[in-house]
């Protein structure tokens, strides 16, 4: 498919008239650039504006301000049916009165393609999503995962410039969700359509995206690859939303040539950091639980307050200088396990220290 295009969102804004004359800012002047063929995810808690952005791109909501480009074309004035986007809905939104073939063929028929072409395209797309032979089933005769594939096929068959996913996996059970997100990832790579994916599930976002846009209260908190977002969260919110993070207060002692020296839990650490802080500032340190470890000796004294066996890991909560921290030790079967109440020492992997404001 050759026509995959870039998507540009400029100063996009959506304000709803709320109750009693209040204004609800759902999306606050957001700008996003998406390269052709890129898979980007809008990630954030419910109410952060991610779905509103998606629906504005599809044309279901009219922006209060800003503009949207697909390729070179400004699509602000186009109604949804004239936009070259195809959406996979959270509820799948399969037409219950049509069988699978006609569900997938729906948009092609609207386009008035010939019967033969439609037949050929539908069967090609059915084999792509692994649903050969299901043409004559009714949607309610399929399992959740199969319905999901039909929804995907129905969008893909349109060969749109942009694929839009509105939390497509949230109605599936945990295992199927993991399986389907890999399928979507695989299929998107294969066809190479620019895709915008909305989810509140951070592991889904990490596993599927080229780029993640973390949103909060209608604003973008951070844009980056999954690795950047995880390892170098820009704010405490991003750190906390992506994975589990201990956010520990610290003091900046000096900053010179990109090296920041801090006092963390009573110890002095020097670390290269792009975080814009000055000597004497308070700052926060993001510590991922898996970057901490416990032992019988060390410099930071701690007490285990809870110890839970999770299978792949032993999850501790420890108390250090009045601060509660989460610690994750992988492969606990081959390690010493500390019981709640044990007095131990905490060691921190220096590389994993991440400074934020």
């Amino acid at each position: 498919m050759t026509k995959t295009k870039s998507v540009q969102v400029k100063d996009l804004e959506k304000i709803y008239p709320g109750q009693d004359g209040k204004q609800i800012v759902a999306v606050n002047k957001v700008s996003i650039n998406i390269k052709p063929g890129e898979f980007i995810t809008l990630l954030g808690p419910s109410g952060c504006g991610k779905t509103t952005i998606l629906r504005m791109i599809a044309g279901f909501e009219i922006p209060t301000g800003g503009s949207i480009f697909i390729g070179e074309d400004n699509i602000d004035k186009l109604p949804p049916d004239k936009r070259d986007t195809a959406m996979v809905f959270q509820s799948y939104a399969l037409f219950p009165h049509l069988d699978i073939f006609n569900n997938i063929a729906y948009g092609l028929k609207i386009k008035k393609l010939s019967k033969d072409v439609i037949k050929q395209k539908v069967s090609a797309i059915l084999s792509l999503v692994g649903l050969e032979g299901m043409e004559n089933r009714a949607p309610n005769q399929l399992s959740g995962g199969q319905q999901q594939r039909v929804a995907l096929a129905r969008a893909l068959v349109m060969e749109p410039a942009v694929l839009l996913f509105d939390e497509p996996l949230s109605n599936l059970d945990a295992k199927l969700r993991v399986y389907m997100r890999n399928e979507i990832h695989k299929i998107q790579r294969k066809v190479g359509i620019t895709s915008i994916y909305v989810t509140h599930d951070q592991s889904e976002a990490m596993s599927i995206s080229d780029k993640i846009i973390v949103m909060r209260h209608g604003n973008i908190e951070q844009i980056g690859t999954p690795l950047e977002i995880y390892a170098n969260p820009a704010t405490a919110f991003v750190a906390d939303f992506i994975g589990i993070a201990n956010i520990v207060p610290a003091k900046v002692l000096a900053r010179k040539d990109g090296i920041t020296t801090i006092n963390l839990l009573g110890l002095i650490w020097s670390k290269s950091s792009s975080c814009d802080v000055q000597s004497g500032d308070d700052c926060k340190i993001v510590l991922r639980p898996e970057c901490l470890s416990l032992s019988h000796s060390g410099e930071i004294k701690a007490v285990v307050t809870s110890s839970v066996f999770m299978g792949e890991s032993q999850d501790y909560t420890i108390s250090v200088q009045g601060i509660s921290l989460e610690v994750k030790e992988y492969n606990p079967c081959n390690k010493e396990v500390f019981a709640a109440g044990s007095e131990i020492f905490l060691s921190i992997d220096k590389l994993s220290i991440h400074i934020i404001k």
Partner: protein
Amino acid sequence: MREHKPTMFSLKWNEMQKILRDPILLLTIIFVGIALVIFIVWPLYSVLSQSFLNASGTFTLEYYQESLKHAENIRVLLNTIGLGLFVSFFATAIGFLFAYADAFLKIKYKKLFNIIAILPIISPPFALAMSFIMLFGQQGFISKVLLGIKNSNIYGFTGLATVQILTFFPIAYLVLSGLLKQIDPSLEEASRNMGASRWQTFKTVLLPLVLPGIANSFLLVFIQTAADFGNPMVIGGNFNTMAAQVYLQAMGNYDIKGGTALATVLLTLSILMFVLQKYWVGNKSYVTLTGKPSRVRELINDKFSLITIGIPCFLISAFILVLYGLIPLGSFVNLWGIDYTFTTRHYIYIWDIGIKPIIDTTILSLISMPITGILGMVVAYLIVRKKFLGRGLIEFTSLLSLAIPGTVIGMGYVLAYNEPPLMLTGTGTIIVLSFIFRSMPVGIRAGVASLQQIDPAIEEAAQDLGANTFQVFHSVTIPLIKSAFFSGLVYSFVRSMTAVSAVIFLVSASVNLLTVAIMSQVDVGRLGVAAAYSTVLIGIVLFVVGILTFLLSKIGVSVSEVQG
């Protein structure tokens, strides 16, 4: 941060642009709006303006003073309110009894209740009044033949109130049984689990939950009773009500102005009840429509409940069946009350004086049927799915016509379309129009209810795949709500066939209708002929509905019941 805050207006305008970008939708909204203004608002305005303007066009209250000066008219108003309260109370009570039996009791033959609920819809609205006269009138089978009472007088409050209670309680029954069935049985189980007896559970859990529904039924029945024209005309005797008085004043006394004044008073009463029902009681419901079927309730099987609730319901049902059965029976009896030999002479008489009313009524009803059905679904779609300026007005106006008494709107049609640009008086068109706008609200309600069950994303998906508004509507929306659509069709046909209150103003020498013909036969005392006409009417209704249902079942649509 923001340079200038957008105003509330600009935000609403922003929402509105979705409509402006969609010419089909915009045109539809304008079309529906204009239709509602011309065929509902304008006639009502005509009634109001006629009542407030004198011949030279200046404002006056003289017609009100004139009409209300008569002690007679004051009494009629009090009659209407008193009768309304009385009938609504008992109809709601009986309706509740039926609803409770239907939802909670383990009894057989519950289908009978459905039949009882449908009978008033498919028969002339004054059918029970006729049967009552046959049983308890001067020549009544019970009063004269069985009890030997001479000069029994069933005309008046007692007869009218009883007939109205029996005609209108199914409304309360349908509303309340719907509510009771939606109550999650686990609420009662929780109450019983905490030690409440069944009676305490009923008093402290069930009753409070359905209280808004009870108030709702009460008001709905009141509106129907106040608007009822046929029964007061047939069995009211000296006990006059507003709906009939409007007609008598305007057509009997040739006092159009006085008629409009009375009509305005009646309209005010009905709209008041409607607004109360829709905006006050309507919002109080605790029972939410989740669409998720909850667990099936364990039905009550103890003797006491079965006897105290089940038996009365079956007795009332049996009585009503007998009453309706009397109509075909009476049509084959030589002279009711005097000579009970079999005859077909009433049918021969109908054939002789001409079957034009029968054909006219059927054809006009058939013409209005598809228009009503489609218009109803379009309006429902606009109300549920689209946001636009004036949506609330469209919803209010279209549902308002449920509450407008037929005699008021009938008079409005006469006044509004008696002169150019719309010179329709005396034509079949005006009757078709009144059929359409009288029965459309029920279709709208069915459409709204069924659209609310459907995920809006399904329609968005269609649009996203390139379908325009029209394509979405006919390829997705209509197929999804086809059951409501066809129910609306069937209902509009039935309602048109049995309509009387509005069209009594609109019939003419060239177009006469069945119901009006029946009433004039009752009026001159030819009960046998009236019964024969009624039997033909019910026969046509059952025939057409039967054919429709059969055809629809062939294409896999089940016609669900529509609440009246």
